[in-house]
């Protein structure tokens, strides 16, 4: 049954040219890095800044948003989730399968391109590149949990997810120090800082707190999604 759900979810994610967007995002990141590596002399100077501000802050949340909402919100939106819900499948099987698939997509199209980008920009510093890859995956898992929960709770999942990742993570996270402590990006940055030892990577949060918060957000998000799916009300389309 899990395999069937996974296959159908993959079809909604990548069928009908929809997957194109998921591929474009990492391709833009890599193309920009290749372009800069070819034209600018010392890319190593700004490699961590670029990975952080473009990769971790923009590309990764978007890949996560499209993967996570694409895996479940589209199905709720067009109502086809009732066919899944009317079968004797545990709700957590549905959520965990879809979330796991989204995480797999983030790994392939978010974390791996991030590592590659790091290697392209600074071939000598493999450790930082790998650290960014791992950080991206960890952040991706937390984002998946958050966006899956939003998908089940609201019909406007994508817009609310965008409001969160644009206004909260980028704008508030930049100007309001308190908001930084509550940002997935900063938590994963704490992990990257620990793993890489790169001088320019600095997180506003300490590593133990960051890890606890990451785990808590993931657990709460997925639990919330599962409980809400148990009593899902299919809203009539506006």
């Amino acid at each position, binding site marked *: 049954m899990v395999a069937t759900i996974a296959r159908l979810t993959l079809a909604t994610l990548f069928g009908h040219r929809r997957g194109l*967007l998921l591929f474009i995002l990492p391709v833009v990141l890599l193309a*920009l890095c290749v372009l800069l590596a070819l034209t600018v002399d010392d890319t190593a100077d*700004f490699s961590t800044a670029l990975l952080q501000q*473009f990769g971790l802050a923009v590309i990764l949340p978007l890949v996560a*948003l*499209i993967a996570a909402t694409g895996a479940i*919100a589209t199905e709720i*939106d067009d109502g086809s989730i009732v066919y899944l819900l009317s079968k004797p499948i545990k709700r957590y099987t549905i959520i965990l399968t879809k979330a796991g698939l989204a995480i797999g997509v983030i790994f392939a199209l978010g974390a791996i391109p991030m590592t590659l980008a790091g290697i392209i920009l600074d071939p000598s510093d493999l450790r930082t590149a790998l650290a960014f890859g791992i950080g991206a995956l960890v952040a991706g898992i937390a984002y998946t949990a958050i966006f899956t929960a939003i998908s089940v709770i609201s019909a406007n999942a994508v817009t609310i997810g965008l409001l969160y990742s*644009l206004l909260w993570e980028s704008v508030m996270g930049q100007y309001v120090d308190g908001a930084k402590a509550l940002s997935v990006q900063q938590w994963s940055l704490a992990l990257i800082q620990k793993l890489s030892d790169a001088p320019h990577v600095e997180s506003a949060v300490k590593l133990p707190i960051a890890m606890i918060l990451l785990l808590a957000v993931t657990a709460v998000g997925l639990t919330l999604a599962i409980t809400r799916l148990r009593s899902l009300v299919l809203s009539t389309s506006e």
Partner: protein
Amino acid sequence: MSDRTGVIHDIGYRHYDGPRLGRWAITQALMVSSLRHAYGIGRSGKSKVMPIFLLAVMVVPAAIVVGIENGLQFDKPPVEPVDYIYLLQPVIALYLASQAPQLFSRDLRYRSIVLYLARPPRRTDYALAKLTALVAAQMILICIPLVVLYAGALLAKYNFLQMSRQFVAGLAGALLLSILLAAIGGLIAAATPRRGFAVAAIIAVLIVSFTAATTTMAIVDEKGDMSSTAARYASLVSPFNLTEALQTWFLRNDRDGSWMPTTQQGLVFTAVYVLLVAACVWGVNARYAKVARG
């Protein structure tokens, strides 16, 4: 029955001999209803939440700025209208992403597009009406805070001519931005019947292009004053930077933190802008041609 531009089917109950409004009137009605729908007017309360919230996010900072500048009496306004637009561009992008699919994707998804295309307005009329409504909706979103800023600046007794000039420059910038964004957003939204996907696609295109452009600029522009040609052409990639540069060049509106394109660069920017808008409008139209064929 002299002028058969309108279609009213006589199915035998009651005859109609009154005036018939033509294609233009239908297009106009479609435009007005689309504009109302862009703010959730005439639709469910739920669909009003997002546009009204985003409009509030646009207007409230302007009102606060006005309050501060009237209270503290600065020598010059703390923020110019044009800069205000680019300060709040994430909100404009979010509005486009959340509302463009409301105008375009819903008709495709519920197949009501078929009913429209069966009526006298051509599919080009339909596409243009929707695009115009989207441009108008964004003009409202951007211009209300500009009017608030302008009124506040006049209340604070700044130089009337200078303020008016900046206000007009702001309006022109808003129009350039609205047209380009509506064309891009309309194309993406018309391409897919899935609303959620269209929202994500629009925002991805806008944010990724903007961040890619600014990052490249920051890296290529070594002196930090936008004197490098490569850095200037990098702004071609992002709709926001493109219209900002175009607006500066067009109105000779040199401000702090902006840069004046040379004549050649200005022409290139204009050409890219026109081509982009034309390509997107053509794309929307071609998409509906495909829909009409079934």
